């Protein structure tokens, strides 16, 4: 079965090349060459994944992402300008599943798309197979893997897909050190590349959204050179 991909980029020639590259890999590619058309397309049709350029005429990629996320959970891979970390951070915070600096190697693009698809498929198939979705409760945080919801002290916390997966891994191993590599596999569906800080960014936004301390104790502790540990309160 062909996976449907929507590429939103104003560079028409690039879109054609990407389509040409992706089709033999088993993807059917639709193209939108501006932001509004991209949003329209993304919401009107069902796509396995959306590849979205940040720099778009009219409304920019972030705005497109925000409008898509308001109504749809379709995975989004952002194409960012290389070196612009801010783009990356903003994109991930708005709920992008991964990012790829532009210009990119098309092999890398395919690998990222497949990693994201594998992960989202796992989630959907897992929730379909497992009859009783697991609920993880650590301290004041309650995470439901089936409904993909997180409650802190009874209040719902909005997390992006990648943040949710990161948190799920840490809660499952609460009290033990989880390596950055492990988190990358879980949250991004791919091994950690050198110089890749996306895991750290997810952890820092988790700290912000959940509160960096619980009862005076650091919620997520950095273990220098290794990874992170979600601390369990001693009285529990």
């Amino acid at each position, binding site marked *: 079965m062909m996976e449907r991909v929507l590429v939103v980029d104003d*560079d028409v020639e*690039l879109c054609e090349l990407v389509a040409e590259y992706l089709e033999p890999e088993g993807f059917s590619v639709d193209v939108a060459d501006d932001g509004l058309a991209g949003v329209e397309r993304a919401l009107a049709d069902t796509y396995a994944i959306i590849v979205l350029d940040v720099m778009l005429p009219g409304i920019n990629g972030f705005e497109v992402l925000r409008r898509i996320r308001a109504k749809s959970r379709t995975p989004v891979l952002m194409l960012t300008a*290389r070196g*612009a970390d801010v783009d990356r951070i903003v994109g991930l915070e708005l709920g992008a599943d991964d990012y790829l600096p532009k210009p990119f190697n098309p092999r890398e693009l395919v690998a990222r798309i497949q990693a994201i698809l594998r992960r989202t498929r796992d989630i959907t198939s897992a929730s379909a197979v497992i009859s009783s979705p697991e609920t993880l409760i650590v301290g004041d945080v309650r995470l439901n893997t089936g409904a993909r919801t997180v409650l802190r002290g009874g209040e719902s916390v909005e997390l992006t897909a990648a943040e949710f997966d990161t948190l799920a891994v840490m809660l499952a191993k609460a009290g033990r050190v989880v390596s950055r590599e492990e988190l990358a596999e879980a949250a991004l569906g791919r091994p950690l590349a050198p*110089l890749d800080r996306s895991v750290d960014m997810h952890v820092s936004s988790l700290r912000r959204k959940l509160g960096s301390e619980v009862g005076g104790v650091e919620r997520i502790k950095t273990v220098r050179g290794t990874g992170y540990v979600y601390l369990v309160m001693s009285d529990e």
Partner: protein
Amino acid sequence: MSLFTKIFLWFWLALGLVGTVLVLAVAATQSETDEAHWRDVTGTAVRVYAQTAADTYENAGTDALVIYLQRVEQTARMRTRIFDERGAEVSGRDATIEARRLADVARQTGDDAEPVFDFSSRVAQVTLVAQPVYGRGGTRYVLVSEVTRKRPAPLFAEPGAWLLRLVAVLLTAGLVCYGLARYLTSPMETLRAGVRRLASGDLSTRVSAQVGTRRDEIADLSRDFDRMAERIESLVRSQRRLLGDISHELRSPLARLSVALGLARRHAGDEAPNMTSALNRIERESERLNELIGQLLTLTRLETDEDELQKTQLDLQELVRQVAADADFEAQGRNRSVRVMASEECSFPGSAELMRSAIENVVRNAVRYTAENTSVEVSLRCSSVDGNSRIRISVRDCGKGVSEAALTEIFRPFYRLAEARDRQTGGTGLGLAIAERAVRLHGGTMHAANASDGGDGLVVEIQLPA
């Protein structure tokens, strides 16, 4: 000597001199007029007394004369004697030798119009005045009065008072000159500070608002300065923007090239193995081009967006460790390594992105130049000197080092060493320039020095204020 001091001292000197001379001149004329006036009044009075005394004596005799003279002494407070032609006291009372002598002098030399004054009395504050007159019978009398009066003071008789006057003059002059010098030179100071700020890179410097609402040459100069600064700023800005725009526009064809390369690779497939090395080469070169553009964009961003530095408290120890680990991973592939030799607990407020890129660029540069099978040594130290602590991150490679002259030049964008090894080693020529700007944005400095511990190598040090 500063312009302020010069203006102040010269004007002060000039005003002080003029003031002093003026005071002296006024004082001199003043005392002269006073003296003349006194002589005039006293002379007139004595002349009247003398004539009346002579008439009284001739008309009414000695007793009446004595009574008259006593009345004069009481009302005018002048001891008065009258002498006849032979020098005898007419009223029959005693007279001082000084009075007699003056009477003799006056009889021989004086005339009716002018009295003779004698200021030489031994008794202080007494002046003798002699007035010769003729009686009706033509007899010549001389009236001598002892007038109590301060002797006319010589010009510098009271040094205290004069000193006071002088000080007052100098003080006033000083005050005025200080104001004048300030008024003239303070806008100069403002201008100078502005020029310095501009020279140190703050192109938004403007001065005419600070110089104020003057309408003179200095105000004109400051307006001209502003126009110049504006022009420089717009030139530099447009040049930077151009650089940024070019870099950005190069990205699109490069992105297409990259995908097209992937397609070419696929089409070549296994049937054309001889294509592979050429394609690899194309990929490497486009990757290099891409890195160069990325660095250029980073550099232009660092040069233009100076104000939006998002600072957080950074754990430098962890940052250095991560950068070193990443660089080591890459260096191992080329038979080189990166080692952290010393590291201390160290916290610093800064932009994580920029500090990382600064340290990374320095370390990668070192990896590029260090000889095969050697290590790049990284150390992080926090030292506290005189209460202000400093953070030093030093990166040492085991390469050939650079010439003394090049030590400061290597932070310039696209600076190429004479040996021109950069191209072979794959550098963009921007790494250290980016690092230097990033560090400078954090208020730090960067230096390079050849290794002094024996052995070749370059030590690049980042210094940050803690």
